Every structure is written in structure tokens, then in C-alpha cells.
């Protein structure tokens, strides 16, 4: 009986905390959705705050009268290239730091992770000089070049965590059976790590979608912008903003990203804390 009361009390605590937080954190998105479904004429009318005629005209505006689709394409272009570069550099390094380099590897891993904390707001001024020396101003390639500076340390850290969770015995068995270390890595370690690598792909891509400081510094023409910069600069420009269209522009990338975050959250936690903080 006491146990039952305790279970009920725990349930009560869970809902009493989680529901208010979910409302506070999620409400802005609900209000974005409401605004996105209004017509431009109804947006400023106080009497139409909650009762209005839903319309999808904001999406039409976004797709036909702005460069939104172009920004989506640019973001995907940069994102996919950066993900590829990041995996190429970070997967071998993450594995080596987790398995081969011993105590030195542990310290080196932490050192690499600390470079993730060096912020773009510190590096954008010197990098803007470098980019202009390389004649990459206003080109997406500038972002492809610079973004791995924060995605690689982040990815190495997560991958270190994932690789540490793979039992050493599995690899030892393959080595005893005559596999070389390299083929052990390719044939045993990589296949098991695919979920971990997929997590890195998702979070790396979302770091690219999120990036703002470099993108606003290096890119000057509106056709070359990414989502994060195109929406705040090009849609917040004239006197009368198209708020429904802007809200739609926010929701389109946000909802899918949140869905994959939710799906991969447990793996993210495992990788993030598996590195050394355990």
C-alpha cells in the first residue's frame, strides 16, 4: 500500500514538473504555427488572436516570392559536404583516441574537445581576413572550409565515447583469428558503430544548420545565404514584415530536426558522456 502511494506520488511529481516545462518551452512553437496559418491581414488584429481563417498562403509566399528554397539547398549543400569531411577526419581519430593511444590519447581527446569551446565570435575576424586572401568571400566554399573547425572536435568527442562502448574482446577475437588491425577496424568495428556514426551525422548537420556568425560574416549576397542567415537578413528587411511567412520559415526546418533529435537522444547522451566524463 505504501509502495503504491509512493508510486502515485512519483507520478504526480513527474507530471507536475514536466508539463509546465513542456508548455513554457513548447509554447513559442505553437504560437509560430498559429501565426503561420494566418493571413497577412489578420496578423495584427487583436480580435483575431485565436479565431481566424486558416490559410496556407504564408507557405506560398515563402516558396514563390523569397529565396527560401535556394537557402534550403545551400544549407543542405554545405551540410552534406561538411558532414563528409568531418566523418573522414573524425572517425579514424576518434577510434585511435579511444583504443590505441592509451593515457596520452585521453589527454589529447580532452584537448581536442576543448578546441570545440573556442567560439566563432573569437575567430571570425582573423578568419574573415584569411577568407578574403583565399578569394572565397561570398562563396559557400568558405563555409565548407571553416565549419569543420567546430564539427571535427565535436564529432571526435562523440565518436570516442561510442568506440569505448564496443567490447575490446570483440576486436581481440578478430585479431587472434588472423585479421590485421586495419581490417578489424573496417570489418568489425565500423559495422557495429553505424548507429553512433549516424548520430554524429545528425548532430554535425544540425551544427551546420545552426551556425550564424561565420555565415553572416563571409556571405554577402542573398542567393548564397544559408537558412540561418537568409531568414533574419532577407525576410526582416522592408518596413512590413510578412510574419506568417517568417514563422513558416522557422517551423519548416525546426520540426524535422526536433523529431530526429528526439529519436537519437539516447545515443547522443551515451556518446557525449562516454568520452571521459564517466
Amino acid at each position, binding site marked *: 500500500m505504501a509502495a503504491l502511494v509512493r508510486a502515485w506520488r512519483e507520478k504526480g511529481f*513527474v507530471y507536475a514538473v514536466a508539463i509546465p516545462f513542456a508548455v513554457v518551452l513548447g509554447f513559442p512553437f505553437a*504560437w509560430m504555427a498559429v501565426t503561420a496559418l494566418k493571413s497577412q491581414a489578420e496578423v495584427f488584429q487583436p480580435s483575431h488572436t485565436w479565431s481566424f481563417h486558416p490559410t496556407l498562403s504564408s507557405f506560398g509566399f515563402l516558396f514563390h516570392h523569397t529565396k527560401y528554397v535556394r537557402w534550403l539547398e545551400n544549407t543542405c549543400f554545405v551540410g552534406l559536404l561538411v558532414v563528409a569531411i568531418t566523418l573522414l577526419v573524425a572517425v579514424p581519430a576518434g577510434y585511435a583516441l579511444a583504443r590505441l593511444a592509451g593515457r596520452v590519447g585521453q589527454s589529447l581527446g580532452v584537448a581536442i574537445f576543448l578546441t570545440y569551446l573556442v*567560439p566563432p565570435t573569437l575567430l571570425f575576424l582573423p578568419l574573415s581576413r584569411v577568407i578574403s586572401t583565399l578569394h572565397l568571400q561570398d562563396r559557400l566554399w568558405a563555409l565548407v572550409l571553416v565549419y569543420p573547425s567546430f564539427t571535427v572536435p565535436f564529432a571526435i568527442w562523440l565518436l570516442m565515447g561510442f568506440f569505448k562502448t564496443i567490447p575490446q574482446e570483440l576486436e581481440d577475437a578478430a585479431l587472434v583469428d588472423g585479421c590485421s588491425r586495419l581490417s578489424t577496424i573496417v570489418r568489425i568495428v565500423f559495422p557495429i558503430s553505424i548507429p553512433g556514426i549516424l548520430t554524429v551525422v545528425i548532430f554535425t548537420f544540425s551544427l551546420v544548420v545552426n551556425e550564424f556568425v561565420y555565415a553572416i560574416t563571409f556571405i554577402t549576397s542573398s542567393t548564397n545565404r544559408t537558412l540561418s542567415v537568409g531568414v533574419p537578413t532577407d525576410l526582416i528587411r522592408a518596413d512590413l514584415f510578412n510574419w506568417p511567412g517568417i514563422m513558416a520559415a522557422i517551423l519548416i526546418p525546426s520540426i524535422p530536426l526536433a523529431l530526429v533529435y528526439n529519436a537519437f537522444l539516447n545515443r547522443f547522451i551515451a556518446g557525449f558522456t562516454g568520452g571521459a566524463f564517466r
Partner: protein
Amino acid sequence: MASVAAAAGSRRLRRVSQLAHRRGVLAAVLISPAVLFIGALVGTPLVLAVYLSLTDATAGSLSGRWVGFANFRHVWADGIFRGALWHTFLFTAISQAVVVLGAGLLAHALVRRFRGRWLLRFLILLPWAAPVALTTIGFLWFFDPLASIWNWFLIHLHLVSKTSPPNWLGTPTLALTSIIVVQAWRILPFATVIFIAGISSIPQEVDDAAAIDAADGLKKFWYVSLPLQLPIALVALLFGIVFTATDMVVPYLLTNGGPFNSTQMITTWAFQTGINSGNIGEGAAMSLFMLPVLAAVAVGMLVFARRSEVA
């Protein structure tokens, strides 16, 4: 002749594969691209930032005249910059205090299994998953002087007058408060996730032992859960500090330092000086004021990583 060459070739191949077998060599080969990459993309600009801060470089030239510490002296004497230091401190300290308290509470709820967990977790993760520059623009609309949704609520609750509702981003104190709230809103989910990681890394046996010893509720939290979670909470806090003190997206997009520089941060002021006014040397000097904070956080992390390794 050909067979000799082939034999030499295969010998070389064997030597290569033997080398690859040695841990140290293989490790170095696998790690060095990453180290070179990071050195080139983070190390070089960092050094260049220090160099630029000691010159009078302007937009359009990579180098300038050597001016020693003149930029730092000038920046330090600048009233707007002093204000920016203070705002950055308030922005970071208040938002992170809110985040740590909120995340600590929320993580304890979310770590359990319950009906509807998936949906609640989805809603709670949204501010972290959504691109921050875009959601900040969303808040520009929520704070709109004519149609603020917050004002709609406050008017209907009779907390503010209908004729002169607050102008959130147009009044100095309110503007700074708004920025702090938005930043706390967006960091909270991430901190919660790290807290959950910390809670779930507590071994079940410890929990069970505490339960057997009849340490109930608050007592168990105070003597068992809290000490065990402190390290991971520290990690979340250190992250939050770095990602707030050095981030310019929220202040830049909401107010860009205004009204009357009342929300100017180190980052936004460095951006305006370095990029908009083209005074790169001075901008670099400003952004270097963030280094002490970063160094302190880095030391904190290192000490922590070492300790958890020993444990």
C-alpha cells in the same frame, strides 16, 4: 627480374603492414589528420587574432602597423565596451542560474518512464533542436510592440494596461531581461539532456542501497543523488557559460546592442567594431577579452576530466 621486384614489393608491403600493427604508429597515422586540421583552422586564426589585436589593421588588409597594446588601452577606456562587459556578465550569470535550477528539476522528472513521455520530451527538446537564429527571429515577433503575444496574455490577466503595454525590446532594462529569458529558454533543454546523462550514469545499486537504508525523497536527493550529480552538473554549467558569454546570435538579432547600447555584449560590440566599422585590430582586441573566461572553463574541464578518470 620481375619476381625479384615483386618479392621486394611484397616485403615492403609486409613491413608496412607490420608497422600498421604497432599501436603507436597506427594511432599517430589515424590521429594526425585531425590534429593538423584543428591546428590549421583553430590554432592559426587564434594566433592571428592575437597578432591583429596588436596592429591597427582595418578591413581590406591582412596586416597593419604594429601598435602594441594601444588597442587594448583604447578598448578598456571605451565606456560602451565597459558596459558590454557588464551586460555580458549579467546575461551569462542570470541565464545560467535559471538554466541550472530548471534543468536540475526537469531532468529528475524526464529520466523516469511515464505515459506521454515521448511527446513531452519532444516539446522540451524543441528549443535546442530548432536553429537558434530562426527561433530568435520568432521571438522578435513575440515581442512585437503592436502585437506581442506576451502583452495579450498580460492584458487579459490585467497585469498591464491596455493603453500602454510594455515595449519589450525598446526599453533598456526590459530589453536585457528579454534577451536573458530567450537565452535561458534555448540553453535549458541542452542542460537538461546533460543532467539526464548524469542521473542515468548513477549505478542502480547505489539507488537501491539508498532506498534500503530508507533514505526517502529529499534526504536521498541531498545525500546521494546530488553529490553524485554535481560533476555532470558542473559540465553543463561550464558549457552553458561558454555558449552564452561567447554567443552573439540572440542579442545581435533581438536588439543588436540597442536601445542606447543597453544590451551591448562583448560579441556584438566586437562585431560592430570589427566588421561594420572595419576596425579589425580593435575588434580582435575586444573579442580577446573572452579568453580569460574560456581559459578558466578549460581548466575547470581538465581538472574535472582528470578527477573522473581517477575515480
